[in-house]
């Protein structure tokens, strides 16, 4: 059951097309998985369109331009819907296949190889081009990320399985935003482990024990 959703303001910005692109991608994937946020996005779109189209029409004379435009549009050849190649949305790790939400399906082809991080953690980088990098992180049962806080912002979406982090328990579809004010230690006790899709804009900062030794290298992983 999904308990963690994007903030309403973020959902509205998403519906408006004005939120940062990397956040929009996270929200889009969450919306694919979450009927509640689908309904809220639809509602926001309705409200926004009502606002946009109810605004007074500027009566500057552009009729000729509009007539030409309409003529041009209706004279163009009929559009043949391109047969969209169905993209496989299955992400593979060690023979297991994870079904990704629609918004992330195209990244199955842009995902690098899995590499083992510390302990029972696996990471596969996702190239988002100029939007930077995201990661799939897979926690095997019993896998844990050492306690850390964030120098920047960390977006996390649970794709499969469950994990906890000392603050709360997260289920498939849950979406969280963490920053410097949150300190947590993600771990999974689910039999099937847990796959998350995550983005951070600055490296993590490990806060406890020996894990602090990771800090000089933390940009190498968890980024």
């Amino acid at each position, binding site marked *: 059951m999904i308990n963690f959703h994007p903030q309403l303001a973020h959902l509205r910005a998403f519906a408006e097309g004005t939120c940062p*692109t990397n956040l929009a991608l996270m929200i889009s994937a969450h919306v694919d998985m979450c009927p509640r946020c689908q309904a809220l996005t639809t509602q926001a*779109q309705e409200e926004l*369109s009502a606002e946009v189209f109810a605004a007074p029409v500027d009566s500057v004379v552009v009729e000729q331009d509009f007539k030409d435009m309409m003529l041009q*549009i209706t004279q163009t050849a009929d559009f043949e819907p391109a047969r969209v190649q169905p993209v496989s949305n299955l992400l593979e790790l060690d023979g297991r296949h994870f079904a990704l939400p629609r*918004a992330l399906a195209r990244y199955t082809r842009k995902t690098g190889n899995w590499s083992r991080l510390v302990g029972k953690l696996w990471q596969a980088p996702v190239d988002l081009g100029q939007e930077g990098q995201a990661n799939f992180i897979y926690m095997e049962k019993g896998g844990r990320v050492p306690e850390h806080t964030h120098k920047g912002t960390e977006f996390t979406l649970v794709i499969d399985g469950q994990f906890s982090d000392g603050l709360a328990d997260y289920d498939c579809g849950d979406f969280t935003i963490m920053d410097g004010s949150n300190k947590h230690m993600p771990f999974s006790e689910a039999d099937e482990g847990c796959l998350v899709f995550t983005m951070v804009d600055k490296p993590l900062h490990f806060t406890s024990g020996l894990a602090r030794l990771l800090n000089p290298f933390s940009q190498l992983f968890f980024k």
Partner: protein
Amino acid sequence: MLVGIPLESKHSNAVVPKDCADEMSAYLALVGQARCKRSFAEVFNYFAPRLRSYALKQMGNEALAMELVQDTMSNVWQKSRLFNADKGAPSTWIFTIARNIRFDMLRKQRNRKEDICADDLWPILCEQTADVNEVALDDQVILQELGQLFDELPQKQRVVIEAIYIEGKSQQEVADQLSIPLGTVKSRTRLALQRLKEMLKDND
């Protein structure tokens, strides 16, 4: 219409989009089914000036604003068949198209590559397709079953079927490859398909 008279005789915001949703839905349906230009003109005359106000605010200059209006209305014309009145009002549909085009235009302006495009974030103009996963799984099951049945075919028939249906060769190519007459390839194909059909029936 005379130049100098505002396009909307009712003036400015007298008509709230919701009130004309049914009317506009009907026009869009006619555009979709019959490529009706008069219906499109109704939709265009209502939405284009309003889109222009939105676009001016978003894009900041007239040329880009008109490009946004044109791309949006062009999509409305081309893809009206994808509009589904059960899923929402025409104004909402057209707004979402404009929003997507605006998003891609702004990214292009900033020289962002197409790593992420609006259609991925908000899939509104895609044909609804079955879940990729389900299809793949179904295919897999069928292929697995067929694979077993294949093994039961006589060797000579199996070779022919595999060459045609898996490697995609023509019957003539298969005949050449195996150095057998074309007629033989045809009869082996026919017999094999017959046999497969019977086996599938027995399996049910």
